[in-house]
């Protein structure tokens, strides 16, 4: 591990040793504990990106709230998107314990400086996409996130416990949407299949590039922020969704999927990583649209936030005067 310097410039060997001990003992680092700057920065990057993903992720599903085809589905979808706003709030709060402000995170997001999950740069033209997002996208998110409940940084791990509980409900409701469509009319079945065809590969890419090409993974695993490699998690996800797709009566768009007795896992085909990097670089179907919507909400709301701040100042002045 790199040697860390204190503010005075001296190497604080004792603090570093304590940090290493906590990590080795699988205990939690808390906001008041000393931590290496690189650990802090890695966490800020990861937690804020995760928060941004929740916030941007409200859009593709929000797209169907006004058109949900039954009132029950409308209610479930609204509750789900509301959960995502809540997740964004917890995650921003967890990141704030590391010394970054919410304003800074918002600015990084709307100026395009910060990243968020590329999956949300795809459009949701079909109602069945509400099913695919729940089943595949939230399903992949759960595989990624359950191990994060044990992340070494306390506030992050604890936020993830609650988030994972809600995500698992989200996944079930997505599966249920697809099941209902698949067993519905011919048009509904086709709607479900078409949607799964579009979301399958992007969902698998949510685990990040293959381990060999994942630059930040090794250090994060050493720090116990990350517990499993990208490829391990991807395999776990494929093993989970193949039998589920059979229950759904839908096919996954990969002819290479096949049970491998020897490995005890499903084999699956190569993913088109060029597409992944294209979307990551901002050349996805909806990158500019997602950012612009966030920017517009922020800018259109500026006068409201100013009014709330002015009112709060006025109230506290009056309280002081009385």
């Amino acid at each position, binding site marked *: 591990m790199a040697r860390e310097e204190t503010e005075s410039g001296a190497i604080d060997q004792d603090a570093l040793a304590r940090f290493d001990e906590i990590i080795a003992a699988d205990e939690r680092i808390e906001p008041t504990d000393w931590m290496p700057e690189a650990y802090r920065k890695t966490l800020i990057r990861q937690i804020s990106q995760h928060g941004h993903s929740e916030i941007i992720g409200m859009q593709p599903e929000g797209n169907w709230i006004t*058109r949900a085809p039954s*009132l*029950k589905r*409308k209610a479930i979808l609204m509750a789900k998107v*509301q959960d995502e706003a809540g997740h964004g709030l917890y995650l921003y709060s967890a990141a704030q314990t590391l010394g970054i402000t919410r304003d800074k995170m918002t600015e990084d997001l709307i100026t395009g400086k910060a990243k968020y999950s590329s999956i949300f740069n795809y459009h949701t033209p079909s109602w069945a996409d509400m099913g695919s997002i729940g089943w595949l996208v939230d399903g992949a998110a759960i595989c990624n996130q359950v191990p994060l409940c044990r992340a070494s940084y306390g506030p992050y791990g604890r936020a993830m416990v609650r988030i994972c509980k809600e995500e698992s409900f989200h996944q079930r409701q997505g599966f249920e949407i697809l099941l209902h469509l698949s067993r519905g009319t011919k048009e509904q079945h086709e709607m479900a299949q078409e949607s799964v065809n579009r979301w399958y590969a992007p969902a698998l890419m949510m685990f990040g590039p293959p381990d060999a090409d994942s630059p930040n993974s090794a250090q994060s695993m050493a720090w116990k922020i990350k517990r499993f490699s990208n490829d391990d998690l991807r395999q776990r996800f494929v093993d989970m969704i193949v039998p589920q797709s059979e229950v759904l009566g839908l096919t996954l768009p990969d002819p290479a999927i096949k049970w491998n007795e020897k490995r005890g896992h499903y084999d699956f085909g190569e993913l088109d990583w060029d597409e992944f990097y294209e979307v990551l670089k901002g050349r996805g179907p909806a990158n500019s649209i997602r950012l612009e919507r966030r920017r517009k909400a922020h800018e259109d*709301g500026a006068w*409201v*936030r100013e*009014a709330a701040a002015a009112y709060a100042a006025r109230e506290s002045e009056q309280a002081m005067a009385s």
Partner: protein
Amino acid sequence: MSETSFQVSVGEAFTAEDVAEAAEKPTEQVARYALRLGDDALILAQQLGWWVARAPELEEDVALTNIALDQLGHARAFLSYAGLAWGKTEDDLAYFRGESEFVNAQLFEQPNGDFAQTIARQFVASHFQFELYRQLQGSANATLAAIAAKALKEVDYHRDHADQWMLRLSLGTDESRRRMLRGLEVIWPFVEELFRDDELTDSLKGVAAAPSSLLEGFEKSTAAVFARCEIEIPAGFVARGGGRLGQHTEFLGHLLAEMQVLAREHPGATW
């Protein structure tokens, strides 16, 4: 179904499914009345749902969606109940009626506008619904009373939310005050219709809350907020109304077209 099979005490979870399964079939008059209240709540929920991922703050995304969800819950209960009279489900009523069959008051279909206009509409809607449900929880009709008792608690929060924003926008900055006043100017003409009695409500004495009887409470509670906001009670245009008779402003058609499009593309399908 036995007469005692449907008993819901105040505060119990009370859903559209409960109503559809357990309520007694309402009379035609009661169903028409429930339809009005259901349409008010449904149209408001639909409007508020638009704000998701567009609100000025994340906390407000959460709050407005919460209010929309509550309204949708009330709508589902009222529509499920009304539908029992005609052998229709909540979805039949929400998705397969035309514009002139909707009987919401015109206030609820007024556009979101900017955040101030949405708050002006929320302010009126929540103070109206609070008075309405407060009275309706004592209705001789057990189902209406039970729906109202549950809704009342939720609408109390909606009222507080609207009041808090009325204060902030009115007393915050010059710009926010200008917008708040403009929002009220747009919305206030639709207040009067909410308090009009008609043949239907006259025929449901002891069952329906007579709209005119809600006015005093509404005026009192809104006047207190206006005073704190240092705003004169708006006066000016009064819209002709007619929502309860299926006469609507030019906005409802667009709203329904969007809300109903997918369901109507697949008649007979379930979701």
